[in-house]
């Protein structure tokens, strides 16, 4: 999956998880709080993203994930097992 494809998939995924959000407002620069997510919403989103993209976010690194782009970068740098 190339970066553009991954970016589209992650944005589509976030749109499906965040209630009442206009997909066009989600960019790689969007911070989670700008999408209306509080800290618990964010950990829930990251948890759901693990299942959706076959990755496991490292407990310490999770704290550094603040934007949509951070998720995309993390997934591209940590390809699912057996696919990398």
């Amino acid at each position, binding site marked *: 999956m190339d970066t553009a494809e991954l970016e589209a998939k992650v944005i589509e995924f976030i749109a499906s998880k965040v*209630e009442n959000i206009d997909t066009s407002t989600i960019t790689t620069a969007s911070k989670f709080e700008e999408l209306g997510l509080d800290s*618990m*919403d964010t*950990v*829930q989103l990251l*948890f759901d993203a*693990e*299942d959706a993209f076959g990755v*496991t*976010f490292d407990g310490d690194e999770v704290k550094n994930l603040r934007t949509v782009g951070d998720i995309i970068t993390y997934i591209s740098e940590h390809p699912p097992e057996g696919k990398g």
Partner: protein
Amino acid sequence: MRIVVTGMGIVSPIGTSIDQFWKNAVAGTNGIVSIQSFDAAKQRSRIAGEVQGFDPATFLSTKQIEQTDRFTQLALHAAQQALEDAGGLEGYEPRRLAVSLGSGMGGFSTFESSAARRFQNKSVPPFTVPRIMANSAAAWIATKYGLKGINLTTSTACSSGANAIGMALDLLRNGKADAVVTGGAEACVLPLTMFGFEALFALSTGFNNDPAHASRPFAKGRDGFVMGEGAGILVLEREDAALKRGAKIYAQLAGYGCACDATHIVAPDIDGQVAAMQAALDDAGVTSGQVDYINAHATSTPIGDVVETKAIKQMFGERALEIPISATKSMIGHSIGASAAIGSIAAIMTLQTGTIHPTINLIEADLECDLNYTPNTAAQKKVQTALCNAFGFGGNNVSIVFTTL
């Protein structure tokens, strides 16, 4: 000061509204089926009283569903019904609105699914703990409806719902609240939980191919209880305040009694059961001669039904033969912490309608179970004082008394 019931809600295998539940209960409708919610092939007991077709999306948002265990969802549905039924609680100060809820296992559905993920080396959902905690349902009811007073959860196994209702009575009598949303909720038709009860030989295992006849309190051939699930919620208030706001009143919650066997962690005990019934009658200020209906605990275990029968005989003497008894669990199985709340609703509907729902599957009674259990067909009788029994692991015995006004 009299405490009255002004709202009721229920989620059960035979109905997700009071009207539907009661209609089916009076008709003696079986709610026990082969387990649909998970692959039960490895269980020794493969049947349950499941609430089927329950869709939380009809009344909860995606986010609320994500953050709640099934037992909380069942509780929220029943609470919504009860609060709509009661109406008008917004007239009370929010800090005077309490919740007192019972659950034996709490969010065990989440416990089992999160544990399974962990054993597969997957991450654990972030809402694992707030979904599992036993007070989750009570907290969600408070949050959804702005009930900002005392918020309690009691976990006394199969008597949890009865203790919760009794504690609600105490809160109102002691002036700690003006209205209480109370009852019980349980959702443990689950593989690990059922393996645990199977290991104790507590569940029915001989009727996997004939689920409709598995839950058979007091009957010959009964071989254990059938796991159930559901929720029952009552709204309680002081009578004077309820009358003042023009609420409809179903019944008086007149008394509550408890006693611990302090003998064995799971075995029932006659003396403890009698003590609880006596304490409830004393608390209600009624005599044993006034009790004219008993909603029995009656789980369909070989020992339990005999012990309760003996306890009722010891409590009521010769009158024991005259008092109509019925076992709601014959139709819906044993919903653990919800069961006494559902039994209470059945008792209240009996006071309201003069109809006693039957104990189904009672074609031939156990020789040691020789009371009037209202076998198979509903009976008509004007009832003024109803006793509801709930006995739980831990030697916990609870009885509650409802009366007409």
